[in-house]
């Protein structure tokens, strides 16, 4: 089966930029940045974060914030794809990236165990029910494969790549794929200790960038084989055309300075899509606003696509949502292709003389029928997705 037959039949997204796609596009067009101090938990850390406010209660399983965020996005995507509550007659898989929901890192549970040698099993039970793909699969009674990808910051992108493989190998006809992560004090503290979290709103690709801000949210695509969509009477011009992934084999936390792994992953994604670099209309870059990430990424993108390629980082409006980032940015990329414009890359003011590329400073119309979204992960994995718009089928 060719990638051209993998349609995007639904989109769903939630982040600090909005609780659904229309709110998000509104934030994009006004340039609103909802960063602020942490309110979700007690902390002494001075970093601004991008929290989701007013999470709809009907999606809020008790104390399972990542699951709640995921459900919000999945629900929107399924509705967008005109898939109802009962999916039992279809073969639907679910592949989701995360970082927080896979870890048993409940501080109250552990403090109690440390101090008294005993602790309530409540957090453990929630954790065991909270494997994010399995949770969604159970909730919607899906009968296709379910898998949670825990590949750090490229998890969401990889989850979509894996879902494409499932569709191509016939393991399912429809796949819900993306990522979800909540803001949590453990990674906030961890990233802080690495010296890569900014005390100001982040400034991707800017000369004076001081690091990332953490965010939270979920982004989900409904991917569907063309014949399944046709059977359901659904048409869509949006497609995931290609996926590529490659490792730096270099360092646990730092990207390889020459960006060789990133370059390979983009080459593989383009070749998987069967298109040349000049067909890419814009790149939704990883752009975390850390010194190293943006330097490496900017260098590679300029080298592969020329210095005039339109790029943006949406982390200026969502923060770095870790395992969700690839899913959220996939939704943004697909929506931008559909809408025909990308917003200004929030937080950017001055070019860094070490980065041979400048992100878009204003709302920009897109020419070209394809887009690229990149993710660079802790541990050296790099992944890229190519999206396309075309005739509705």
């Amino acid at each position: 089966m060719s990638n051209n037959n993998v349609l995007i039949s639904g989109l769903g997204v939630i982040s600090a930029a909005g609780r659904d796609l229309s709110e998000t596009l509104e934030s994009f067009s006004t340039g609103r940045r909802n960063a602020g101090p942490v309110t979700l938990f007690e902390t002494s850390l001075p970093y601004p974060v991008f929290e989701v406010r007013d999470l709809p209660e009907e999606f809020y399983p008790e104390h399972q914030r990542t699951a709640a965020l995921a459900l919000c996005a999945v629900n929107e995507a399924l509705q967008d794809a005109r898939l109802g509550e009962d999916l039992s007659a279809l073969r639907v898989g679910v592949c989701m990236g995360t970082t927080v929901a896979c870890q048993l890192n409940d501080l109250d549970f552990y403090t109690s165990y440390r101090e008294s040698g005993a602790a309530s099993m409540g957090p453990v039970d929630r954790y065991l029910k909270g494997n994010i793909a399995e949770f969604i699969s159970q909730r919607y009674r899906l009968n296709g494969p379910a898998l949670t990808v825990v590949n750090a910051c490229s998890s969401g992108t990889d989850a979509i790549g894996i879902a494409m493989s499932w569709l191509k190998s016939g393991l399912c006809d429809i796949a819900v794929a993306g990522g979800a992560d909540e803001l949590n004090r453990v990674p906030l503290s961890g990233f802080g200790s690495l010296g890569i979290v900014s005390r100001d709103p982040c400034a991707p690709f800017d000369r004076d960038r001081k690091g990332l801000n953490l965010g939270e949210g979920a982004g989900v695509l409904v991917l569907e084989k063309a014949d399944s969509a046709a059977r359901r009477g659904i048409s869509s011009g949006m497609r995931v055309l290609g996926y590529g992934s490659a490792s730096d084999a270099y360092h646990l936390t730092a990207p390889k300075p020459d960006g060789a792994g990133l370059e390979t992953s983009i080459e593989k994604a383009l070749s998987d899509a069967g298109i040349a670099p000049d067909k890419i209309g814009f790149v939704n870059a990883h752009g975390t606003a850390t010194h190293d990430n943006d330097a490496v990424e900017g260098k590679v993108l300029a080298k592969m696509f020329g210095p005039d390629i339109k790029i943006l980082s949406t982390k200026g409006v969502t923060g770095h949502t870790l395992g969700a980032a690839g899913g959220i940015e996939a939704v943004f990329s697909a929506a931008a292709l559909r809408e025909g414009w990308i917003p200004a890359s929030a937080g950017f003011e001055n070019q860094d003389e070490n980065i041979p590329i400048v992100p878009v400073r204003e709302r920009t119309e897109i020419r070209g029928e394809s887009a690229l979204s990149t993710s660079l992960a802790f541990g050296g994995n790099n992944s890229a997705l190519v999206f396309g718009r075309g005739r509705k089928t």
Partner: protein
Amino acid sequence: MGTEGVQDLARIRKTLKELLVKDLSLEDITPEEIKDDEVLFGEGLGLDSLDAVEIVVILQRNFGLDVKDMENRKDIFYSIDSLARYVFESRKDSVSDG
């Protein structure tokens, strides 16, 4: 610097070497084998960016020092000598401040 200062610096250097070997899990090297002026990063001891942020935590936990703006304070991290001098000077400042 008086004799006391010299002794104090020597003690700090010794402590730092022990902490580095232990907390950075350095293998095939004992604290005594680290030279005072050996380059810590890249060449020399071969430490990397993750070791650098770990050293920040070592300074915090063991000497109560908060290194802000690491990017512009690379001079501190050059060698055991420079680290020890930084610890020594910072302590002196905080004593005179107090």
